[in-house]
Each structure stands twice: as structure tokens, then as C-alpha cells.
């Protein structure tokens, strides 16, 4: 990838139909002196560019819908999403991510794929270990609680992936088509690593085989991988038949989903006091660190800037579909208040509102 002057822009055709001014492409043209602050150096003009990008992100319908959801629950509104609508939307989103990725994966050469894949696996093993040590040493959490939280931060949030995808589309930065494959790669290992750590530390834990099996056939992995396979097998012509549903409506559906997520996150926010200050800090700083590492590894692996931003966001995101279910079964003694509040109440909103444009800003350090 590094040899080619312009990175592949698989999604570009659909941008053309979008009446969005491709902000950053113009701004990125200038590439000159750098400003340094907090030992981070930015190109001149980058600060302005970043503010514009933050604004685009904050005022997107998705983020605003999330805020509306938080408001609805905080104000005590009787607005409630039927659980079936939530389930239906998440089936749709996971399948749509997979399908679109599969169509593009089919056109990816293995040569450009293996390095990012390895880096992703490294993240999936490294992040939970680092998180576990931090939570035990600095946070003084019990083994089970530390491992449970570590599993969530090592794994990945598919909706955060959808949000960063949408963000990059709005600011017209292309990224590799195989990123959904990395979502699938990153989702499972971290959970297994964290559970293994807990097991080594306590000795207990039966039903280990069942946990691995349930993770691999869990609905989120199954839909992602299934979508990837269908997309790859059916190709562009086949996918065109279902594109109005799986591409046309994607961002609208994401908006509805984030409305509901806002309501869920707001319920978790009520537990903020219970989880303590350390976890609040952890929920903000850990994604920052993970995001930076992800972007760095992405740039090492030869990803385009867009691809590195996505990988950084994936590393920064915390799971709330696969991990909670697996952890509840495998580590029942861990307190769900901790891991649910941290991942849903703190890290998810942080990434959605501030993190994503921030990872964009951080990426300018490497590109």
C-alpha cells in the first residue's frame, strides 16, 4: 500500500452522490511545518482542520440521535424502543457491515492483508494483558473484575466501527475495504486472553470449552463472518440486488440504533458513582492509549490513513455484545456494574463524540 500514491478508495463511488463537501481532502493537500504541543506535533492548519472535523462529527445525525437518547432517559421520558427493534437493528447492522466488507474483501490481495491482520491479532492479545495489569495494579480490582473489564477493552464494538466508517465517509477519507474482517479478528481473541488470565490467576473455571464455542458461533461473529462470506461469494453484481437495503439505509438505521444506545448508556451513567473515579478515568484514558497504539501499528502495517484511523478506533472501542455475554457465563463472580458501565456508559459515548475525530487528529502525526 505504501508504494501507491493514492490509497484505494472502494467507497468513493457512493460519495459522489453525497452532497457533503469533502472537507479534509482539500485541507490535507497542504502538508508543511508542524506545530508541537504536549510533545505532539501537528501540521500547521491541522488544528483548524481538526476543529472542523470535530464539528462535522458532533453535528452528524448519528451523534445527535445518541444525545437525544441520553436526554430521553435522563428526563424520564416514556420513549422506549421495543427490544425486538433493537435486536432487529443489530442483526441488520452486523450483516450490512459484513456484506459490504465481503464484497471488497474479494478484491483484496492477500499481500496487503496479512500485515494488518497480524497487527490486529497483536492488539487482541496485547490490549487485554495491559488492561488487566493496569486494573489489578493501579485500580486494585479483584482478579475476576479486572479480567472481565480487560476482556471488554480488548474486544471491539461493531457500532463504534460503523460510526467511524460513517465519519470517514463524511470527511471523505478512504480506507481499506477489508476492515470488517479485522473487526471479526479482533472480537474474539481478547475475550479468550482475558478469560485465560482469570483462569490462571484463580485456577477455577469450568465450561471453558463451551465459552470458546459460544464465542465463535455467537451472533455477532456469526453475522459478521457470514456477511463477509456472502459478500465475497456473491460479488458486486449479487450485492447490487440488496444494496438499497444494506447500503442505502445503513446510516439511517445507525441513527435509530444510536438513539436507543443513548437510552441504554444513560441508564449506565446512573451507576457512575458506584464504579468509582478510577474506572471513569480508565474508561477515557485506556481508549486513548489503545487508539494511539492502533493507529501506530496500522501505519506500520502499511494501512492508508483512513485504515489506520479505523484500526485505532477498533483498538479504542470496548465490546458490549460478545464480551458481556461471555464474561457473565465464564466469570459470573465479576460485577457487571463495572464492565457494563465502563464500556457502555463511558468509553462508548467518549469514542462516539470525541474519540473518533481525535483518532483522526492523532493519525496526522503518522501521515
Amino acid at each position, binding site marked *: 500500500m505504501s508504494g501507491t500514491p493514492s490509497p484505494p478508495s472502494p467507497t468513493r463511488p457512493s460519495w459522489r452522490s453525497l452532497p457533503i463537501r469533502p472537507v479534509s481532502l482539500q485541507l490535507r493537500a497542504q502538508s508543511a511545518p508542524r506545530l508541537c504541543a504536549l510533545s505532539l506535533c501537528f501540521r500547521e492548519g491541522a488544528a483548524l482542520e481538526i476543529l472542523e472535523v470535530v464539528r462535522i462529527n458532533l453535528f452528524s445525525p448519528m451523534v445527535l440521535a445518541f444525545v437525544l437518547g441520553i436526554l430521553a432517559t435522563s428526563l424520564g421520558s416514556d420513549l422506549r424502543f421495543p*427490544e425486538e427493534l433493537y435486536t432487529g437493528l443489530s442483526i441488520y447492522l452486523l450483516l450490512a457491515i459484513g456484506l459490504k466488507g465481503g464484497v471488497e474483501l474479494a478484491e483484496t490481495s492477500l499481500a496487503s492483508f496479512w500485515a494488518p491482520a497480524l497487527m490486529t491479532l497483536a492488539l487482541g492479545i496485547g490490549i487485554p494483558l495491559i488492561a488487566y495489569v493496569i486494573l489489578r495494579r493501579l485500580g486494585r480490582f479483584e482478579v475476576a473484575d479486572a479480567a472481565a473489564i480487560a476482556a471488554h477493552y480488548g474486544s471491539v464494538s461493531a457500532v463504534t466501527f460503523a460510526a467511524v466508517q460513517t465519519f470517514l465517509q463524511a470527511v471523505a477519507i478512504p480506507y481499506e475495504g477489508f476492515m470488517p474482517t479485522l473487526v471479526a479478528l479482533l472480537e474474539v481473541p481478547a475475550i479468550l486472553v482475558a478469560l485465560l488470565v482469570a483462569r490462571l490467576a484463580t485456577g477455577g473455571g469450568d465450561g471453558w470449552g463451551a465459552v470458546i464455542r459460544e464465542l465463535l458461533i455467537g451472533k455477532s461473529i456469526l453475522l459478521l463472518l457470514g456477511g463477509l462470506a456472502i459478500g465475497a461469494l456473491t460479488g458486486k453484481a449479487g450485492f447490487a440486488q440488496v444494496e438499497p437495503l444494506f447500503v442505502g439505509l445503513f446510516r439511517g438505521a445507525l441513527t435509530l440504533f444510536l438513539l436507543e444506545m443513548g437510552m*441504554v448508556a444513560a*441508564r449506565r451513567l446512573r*451507576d457512575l458513582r*458506584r464504579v468509582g473515579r478510577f474506572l471513569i478515568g480508565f474508561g477515557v484514558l485506556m481508549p486513548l492509549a489503545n487508539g494511539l497504539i492502533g493507529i501506530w501499528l496500522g501505519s506500520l502495517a502499511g494501512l492508508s490513513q483512513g485504515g489506520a484511523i479505523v484500526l485505532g478506533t477498533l483498538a479504542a472501542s470496548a465490546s*458490549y455484545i460478545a464480551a*458481556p*455475554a461471555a*464474561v*457473565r*457465563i465464564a466469570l*459470573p*463472580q465479576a460485577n*457487571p*456494574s463495572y464492565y*457494563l458501565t465502563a464500556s*457502555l456508559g463511558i468509553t462508548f459515548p467518549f469514542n462516539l463524540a470525541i474519540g473518533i475525530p481525535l483518532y483522526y487528529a492523532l493519525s496526522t502525526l503518522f501521515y
Partner: protein
Amino acid sequence: MQTTRLKLVTIIAEAVLEDRLLRELKSLGARGYTMGEVRGEGTRGIHASDWEGQNLRIETLVSPEVAERIMAHVAQHYFPDFAVIIYSVDAEVVRGPKYL
């Protein structure tokens, strides 16, 4: 109408326990079950069901001995870590042998 007096055992549990509980009910001697989705609150704070979905309400008609066994099993295996309650009620059924 000839009826038999059995125990109707009801379990309210987090949704993540579905498969496990149904498997264990069967192995403890229940010949059937009926299950619905419910929401609830109790003395335990947040549990995974807050995110992963609702509670389950599982009912099974069993003999008093099996009821006893189920209640002991659930109390021992689930009370410490999970949001679960269990209770039993006397019920009159037709076709008693079906449930034994």
C-alpha cells in the same frame, strides 16, 4: 375430573442462563417447561440482563420430590453469583402421570 396435586416451580432468571437451566431442569427430572420473557427488579443491583435482554420466567410442573431437587440445585448453583429466584406453588393437574 380426576386431578393430581403437583408442584408448579417457577424460576425467574437472567436470560444468559436459558440454555443451562433448561438442560439442568431436564436432567433433574422435569418432563416439560413453559417459558416467557419478563422484566424485573430485586435486591441484587444491575445484572448482565440489563444489557443482554430481559429475565426469563420458567415454569415447570413436577412431582414434589423433583421440585425439591430443582430448588436445592438452583439455590446451590445460582444464588451466589446470579440474579435468580425460585419458588413453588401447589397445582392441580389433569393427567398426572404425564408430569412424572
